[in-house]
C-alpha cells in the first residue's frame, strides 16, 4: 500500500513541478522598461549590431546621456539577426523595447499598423526640428505626424582606385554614366584570358536599393500613386539597361559573388573591382582592413544628365506600449539632439542628419566624405510606401536572372512587377 501512495505522490509531484515551471514561464513580464531597484527609470533601447567601433561610440553617447539624467538607466540590447522579424514579433507579444531603430524602408508599413507613438506632442522649442535635413525627416512622417527622428544617414558615392586609374591612363572620376562605362571597360583586367576577369572595372550591387535612384532621371518610379510596383515602365527599364550591357556584353562589371566576396566594399578592397558605388560605411572598413589601398570618392556620375544618388536613413522611434514614455522621449531627444548626434557621428561612420552638426564636424570639407555630404541635397531616400518590402523581394529575385541573361530585362521586370502587385492585392 505504501508503495502505491509513493508512486502517486511521485506522479503528482512531477506533474505539479512541471505545471509550476510552465506557470512561471507564463507569468507576464512588463513590456519594456520600468523601475529598477535603485528607483531609477529603466529605458530599453534596441538596435541591430554594427562594428565594435560603432558600438563603443554608442556606449559613449549613452553614458553621457545617463550622466545628464541620473534618474534614468538605459538598457541597450543588440538584435543580432533578422532585426525586423524579431522586432515585429516582440511588438505583437508586447515585449518590444521602449525605443528602437527603424529603417526608413520599413517605416511606412510599421507606422500604418499604429504601434508607434506619435512624437509631435513631445517636441519642444529647444529640440529645433528645423535643423534636420527635410527629406530625411519626411521619411518618418505620415499625414503630417512625426513618428521618428533620423539618427544618421548615408548616401552613395563612387569609390575609385586611384592607382588603377593612373595605370590605365585615366584622369579624374567619370562625370557621366556613359563615361563610367568607358572607364570600366579600360579598367577591366583579364590576364589569363579565360573570359573571367581578375579585376572588374565596376563592382555592382544587384539590389533594388542600389538601383532605384536611377529611375527618376529617366522619369520612371518604383511605385505608382496607389503604392503598387511600377518599375517595369519603359523609363525604368531604360535606366537599368546600361548596367545589364556592362555586365553581359562588355563584361566590365561584376557582382561581388562572381569573385567570391560578400559585398562591394570587400570586392573593392581586395582589388577585384577598380570602382564601386557604395555608402560612407565603406570608408572606415577600407581604412581598417586595406590600409595600403590608394582610393578616393567622388559624387556619382550623372544619369541621363541629372545628378542622382540614394539616401539611407534610420530613426529612433518609440513603442506605443511603453510604460516610460517621458523618459523614452528624453533618450530620443538626446540621441537625435545636437549634443548626442555630435558624439554619435563624430567618427564619420554615418553622417549627421542635423545641418548644424554636419557644419560643426566639418564633413563638407573632408576629402573622403565631401561627396557624401554633397549628395544629401539631391539624394532620394530609400523608401516607397508600405509595400516596398514585397516589391523589393520580387525585383531582387528577377533582376538577377535578367543580369545573368536567363531572360530579357523587359520580361524579368514585367514578371517581377506582376508578381509583386498580385501579392500586394492578395495580402490586403
Amino acid at each position, binding site marked *: 500500500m505504501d508503495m502505491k501512495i509513493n508512486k502517486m505522490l511521485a506522479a503528482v509531484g512531477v506533474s505539479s513541478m512541471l505545471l509550476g515551471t510552465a506557470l512561471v514561464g507564463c507569468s507576464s513580464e512588463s513590456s519594456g522598461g520600468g523601475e529598477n531597484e535603485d528607483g531609477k527609470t529603466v529605458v530599453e533601447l534596441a538596435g541591430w549590431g554594427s562594428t565594435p567601433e560603432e558600438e563603443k561610440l554608442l556606449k559613449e553617447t549613452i553614458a553621457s546621456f545617463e550622466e545628464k539624467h541620473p534618474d534614468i538607466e538605459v538598457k541597450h540590447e543588440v538584435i543580432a539577426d533578422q532585426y525586423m522579424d524579431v522586432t515585429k514579433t516582440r511588438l505583437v507579444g508586447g515585449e518590444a523595447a521602449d525605443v528602437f531603430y527603424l529603417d526608413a524602408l520599413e517605416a511606412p508599413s510599421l507606422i500604418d499598423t499604429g504601434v508607434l507613438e506619435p512624437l509631435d506632442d513631445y517636441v519642444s522649442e529647444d529640440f529645433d526640428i528645423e535643423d534636420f535635413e527635410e527629406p530625411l525627416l519626411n521619411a518618418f512622417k505620415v499625414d503630417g505626424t512625426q513618428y521618428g527622428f533620423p539618427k544618421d544617414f548615408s548616401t552613395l558615392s563612387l569609390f575609385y582606385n586611384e592607382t588603377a586609374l593612373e595605370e590605365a591612363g585615366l584622369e579624374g572620376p567619370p562625370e557621366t554614366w556613359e563615361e563610367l562605362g568607358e572607364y570600366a571597360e579600360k579598367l577591366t583586367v583579364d590576364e589569363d584570358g579565360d573570359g573571367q576577369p581578375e579585376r572588374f572595372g565596376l563592382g555592382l550591387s544587384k539590389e533594388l536599393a542600389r538601383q532605384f535612384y536611377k529611375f527618376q532621371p529617366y522619369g520612371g518610379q518604383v511605385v505608382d500613386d496607389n503604392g503598387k510596383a511600377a518599375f517595369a515602365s519603359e523609363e525604368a527599364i531604360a535606366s537599368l539597361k546600361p548596367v545589364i550591357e556592362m555586365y553581359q556584353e562588355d563584361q566590365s562589371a561584376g557582382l561581388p559573388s562572381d569573385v567570391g566576396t560578400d559585398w562591394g566594399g570587400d570586392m573593392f578592397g581586395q582589388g577585384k573591382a577598380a570602382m564601386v558605388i557604395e555608402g560612407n560605411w565603406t570608408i572606415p572598413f577600407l581604412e581598417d582592413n586595406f590600409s595600403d589601398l590608394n582610393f578616393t570618392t567622388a559624387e556619382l556620375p550623372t544619369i541621363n544628365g541629372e545628378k542622382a544618388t540614394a539616401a539611407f536613413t534610420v530613426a529612433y522611434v518609440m513603442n506605443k506600449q511603453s510604460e516610460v514614455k517621458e523618459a523614452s522621449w528624453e533618450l530620443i531627444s538626446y540621441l537625435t539632439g545636437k549634443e548626442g548626434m555630435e558624439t554619435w557621428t563624430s567618427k564619420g561612420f554615418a553622417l549627421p542628419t542635423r545641418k548644424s552638426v554636419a557644419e560643426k564636424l566639418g564633413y563638407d570639407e573632408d576629402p573622403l566624405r565631401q561627396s557624401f555630404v554633397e549628395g544629401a541635397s539631391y539624394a532620394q531616400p530609400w523608401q516607397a510606401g508600405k509595400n516596398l518590402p514585397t516589391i523589393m523581394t520580387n525585383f531582387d529575385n528577377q533582376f538577377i536572372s535578367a543580369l545573368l541573361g536567363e531572360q530579357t530585362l523587359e520580361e524579368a521586370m514585367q514578371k517581377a512587377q506582376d508578381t509583386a502587385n498580385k501579392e500586394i492585392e*492578395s495580402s490586403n
Partner: protein
Amino acid sequence: MDPMKKEDHSQVFQKRGSKQKKQPRRPKKVRSKAFKEGFSGYLFMSPTIFTIGIFVVIPILYALYLSFNDVQLLGGIGYEFIGLDNYTRSFDDDRAMIALKNTAEYVFIVVPVQTCLALLLAAALNSNIRGKNAFRIIFFLPTVTSSAVLTIIFMWMYNPDGLINTILAFLQMPTYNWLADPSIALKSIMIMNIWATAPFFMVIYLAAMQDISDSVYEAATIDGANWWQKFIYITIPILKPVTFFVVVMGVIGTFQLFDQSYIFSGGSGGPNNSTLTIVLLIYQYAFKSLDMGYASALAVILAIIIMVVTLIQKKFFGEEKLHD
C-alpha cells in the same frame, strides 16, 4: 511491481479462509482498483501528455483554426473568419508554386540518392573489411554535427575561390558558382544534405543487416549464388520494411527543408527563388509579413501533401514487418 499481487501473496498464507468470504464483493473492488491503477497510469503519463498537449496538439489545432482566418497581429490582434480564402489564395500564388516545385525536385532527387547511398555504405561496412569500426564512426560524424555549422562550412567550400572549385580546376574540370547561380544553388544544397543524412540511414540499415541470419546466405552460397545475387535477392528483399522506414523518414525530412536554404540565401530563398522551399515560404509569410493565417494554411497544405505521399508509399511497399 504490482501492489495488488503483493497483497494477494501475503494473504495466501494468512487469510485463506477470510478471502473466500469476501469473494462476492470482489468484482466491485477490482473495478475500483482498476480505476485507481488507470488513474495512476495517467498520472504518470501526465508530464508527457501535458507537454505534448501544450507544445504539439494545441498548436496544431490552433494552426488549423488560424488557417481559416485573416489574422491581424500588429497593432491589436484580430481574427476574421474567411473560410477557404487562404487555401484558394495559395493556388494563385506564384511563389508558393515555385516553392512546391523546388521542394518536390529536392525530394525526388535527394531521397532515392541518399537511400541508395545509405544502403551501399551499410553493405560495405557489414562486410569484413579492416577497420570497419573506425569507418562507422567517420561516416556517422556528419549526422551528429549541427546542420547550421555544416551549412556554413559548405558555404566556404562552395565559394567561387573555395576548396571545391580549386579541386575541380586542378582536375581540369569546369568550375561553378555554387552559391549565386540560380540553376546550381539548389543542387549545392542537395549535395550537402545527401552527404549529411545518408550516414544516419546507413546506421539503420546496418543494424537491420546484422539481424539477417547467416544461414540464409550459407544456403545461397551452396546454391551457387555470387555476392551480387545475394545482395539483390536476399539482402534487399529482407530489408524492405527498413527501406520503407528510411524512405518515409527521408521524404518527411526533405519536404521540411528549411535551415540549409535559409542560411544559404540569408532567408530570401534566392538567387531568383531557386532555394525557396515551402517551409521557408511559410516562415517568410509568418514572420516577415506577419500573415499568420495564410502561413498556417500553407503549413496545413504541406502536412496534407506529406500524409498523401506517405500513404502512397505504404501502398507501394505493402505492410510487411521485419520479423514474422
